[in-house]
């Protein structure tokens, strides 16, 4: 495990890529989480993290409810259990960095700062959605916040993200790409091809494996011959680390290292070990989980754990936590109300996005439309 765990403070952040490899300019101040007397900056970040985690939690629960109310369709995959991982990862990206994710991305969209109304409206399939209602739960995209999707094909985002990093290198840009994926995704060919290309070409990209232990019902040990997923980096000469994904501070520290390496012009593979608290998607009762496993999960909750931690170090108390929760719940209710009030896209827009550029002879027929209108009879034609 090559990642160092460091606290991430704004002063430590680089403002410019140096072109050198992942050296650390300022020595890391070791502040193991749980230690007392956090600095003001740390308190602020902790509060930000907690609010974000809580918001994701309540948002996802609201989405789950809306799904059962048939306000959301298709597949709907939630980030329940992954809140700490998301908060820590997203905090280390600059706004101008690019993010590619899989289909389990609501929390990422929120943490990138996208308007929650637009995220929920997308789930509801409304025009005000981030993808104008075209994408749904699996396909959120917001060019202004540089969330470049939301991909439903397992592994599909990897080559694309790699290419985005290639474009950044090509342009000599200072931004990096982060590309997240699940543990089950490691088995697919695109993983291999993408990591090899990224390393061969020295691309500024952080590949993140969100290891929540399962791909649908398949445990990592059944999908990967080498269950230490971060060690896959070795096969491509890519620096890598595994990190506890249940605490946002720890994730942020490891992410800082990863981002530094990428900003310096080399790919990085970060495995974030987390939990999927519920089924694969909203409709999955996860019956394949053993009773023991279900019992264990009851004791695991990154949001609750962080609340306890913040209470212990005096950043929060029971009252402020309850207050915050009430506030977030109100916000999420407003968000759901917004989404429900948003219009559905007009069916006249059905053909608007097939092509980006105008094209003659494009087929714009609705089902059943005649290819040719019944011709008037031309008696003497033959």
């Amino acid at each position, binding site marked *: 495990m090559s990642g160092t765990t460091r606290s991430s403070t704004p002063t430590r952040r680089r403002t410019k890529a140096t072109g050198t490899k992942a050296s650390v300019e300022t020595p890391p101040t070791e502040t193991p989480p749980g230690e007392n007397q956090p600095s003001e900056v740390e308190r602020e970040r902790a509060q930000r993290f907690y609010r974000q985690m809580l918001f994701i939690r309540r948002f996802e629960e609201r989405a789950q409810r809306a799904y059962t109310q048939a306000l959301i*369709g*298709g*597949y709907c995959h939630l980030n329940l259990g992954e809140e700490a991982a998301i908060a820590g990862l997203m905090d280390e990206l600059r706004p101008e960095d690019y993010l590619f994710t899989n289909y389990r991305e609501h929390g990422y969209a929120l943490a990138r700062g996208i308007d929650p109304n637009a995220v929920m409206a997308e789930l509801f*399939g*409304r025009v005000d*959605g981030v*993808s104008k*209602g*075209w*994408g*749904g739960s*699996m*396909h959120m995209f917001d060019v202004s916040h540089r969330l470049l999707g939301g*991909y*439903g*094909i*397992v*592994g*599909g985002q990897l080559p694309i993200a790699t290419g985005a990093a290639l474009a950044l290198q090509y342009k000599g840009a200072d931004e990096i790409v982060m590309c997240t994926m699940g543990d*089950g*995704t490691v*088995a*697919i*060919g695109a993983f291999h091809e993408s990591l090899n290309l990224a390393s061969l070409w020295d691309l500024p990209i952080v590949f993140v494996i969100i290891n929540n232990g399962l*791909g*649908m*019902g*398949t445990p990592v040990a*059944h*999908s*990967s011959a080498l269950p230490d997923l971060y060690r896959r980096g070795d096969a491509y000469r890519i620096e890598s680390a595994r990190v506890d994904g249940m605490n946002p501070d720890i994730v942020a520290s490891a992410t800082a290292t990863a981002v530094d390496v990428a900003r310096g012009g080399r790919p990085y593979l970060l495995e974030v070990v987390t939990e999927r608290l519920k089924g694969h998607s909203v409709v999955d009762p996860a019956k*394949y989980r053993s009773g023991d496993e279900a019992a264990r999960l009851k004791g695991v909750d990154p949001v609750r754990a962080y609340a306890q931690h913040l209470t212990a170090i005096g950043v929060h108390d029971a009252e402020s936590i309850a207050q915050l929760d009430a506030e977030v719940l109100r916000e999420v209710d407003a968000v759901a109300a917004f989404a429900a009030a948003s219009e*559905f*896209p007009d*069916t006249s*827009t*059905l*053909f608007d*996005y*097939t092509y980006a550029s105008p094209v003659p002879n*494009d*087929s*714009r*027929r*609705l*089902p*059943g439309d*005649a*290819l*040719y209108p*019944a011709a008037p*009879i031309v*008696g003497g034609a033959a």
Partner: protein
Amino acid sequence: MTELTYREALRQTLRSELLRDEDVMLMGEEIGVFEGSYKITAGLLEEFGPRRVRDTPIAEEGFTGAAIGAAMLGLRPVVEIMTINFSLLALDQIVNHAAKIHGMFGGQMSVPMVIRTPGGGGQQLGASHSQNIELYYAFVPGLKVVAPSTPADARALLLAAIKDDDPVLFLENLALYNTKGDVPDDLPAATIGKAKVTRPGRDLTLIGYSRMAVVALEVAEELAESDGLDIEVIDLCSLRPLDRETVVESVKKTHAAVMLEDDWLTYGIGAEVAATISDGAFDYLDAPVRRVAMAEVPLPYSKPLESAALPSRQDVVNAIRATLAAVGHRTSEGTR
């Protein structure tokens, strides 16, 4: 005779085939512990164990290719690809390998495998999860492609596919899994490559496959009721080989045809059907073959857009009426 869902007919057939032939084995993502994304394999891991019912990692190319090699050595693997959209990742193995191994090596070894996979649309799964790309397989010599529309056909064709010595793409449909129908207890295997006239009629030939064969039958019944129309319905059942004769003979009788399909219109399955009719029944056809298909867009998530893009019953009714009007128009004006 038992009434079963399409899902249950598939499940029972897989089970009876696992019991019948030790060489039959199942492979795919989440077919075991998870019991199948759409529960087609529910209970089979428990009954037959992991040797016969093998969960795979997410590696469509790898496990589909592995089924090819296993088939070459005498197994009869039945692969589940979770939805047909993901089969694009295995296309090289299916098209460049499964379909070619018998011919390219001079007929030395066959590849007796089945790839089960559902198509569909209308489930708000978005553009990359709602495609009907059976065309990609139907186009390829060396493959056989079947597309049952009823529980009984699902059983009869799955029996045939598993017994077949060639690779068979077995097209299921998300929207059919819960549909019900009678399945004779001693139903024999179907013959791959044959279409079925599922309703005889004289006024117009309505053609479909998979879900659209069901819609065709329903609409024909409705129009018999409402308009007194006598529509002949054909379920293609097999897309490769394509049973041209059954279709052409029907149109020679009815003089008009409408083709229903859930894929995109241009270059879709219906193009060949329309071209075939226009050729084989050239002197009999009284109006152009009309095709009812999906709008040519990446299917949007939002329900109203998705609904607008997918063929509805009303679209089918309209197409039939328009075609009959054109026939009347032409015949009354004496253009033939």
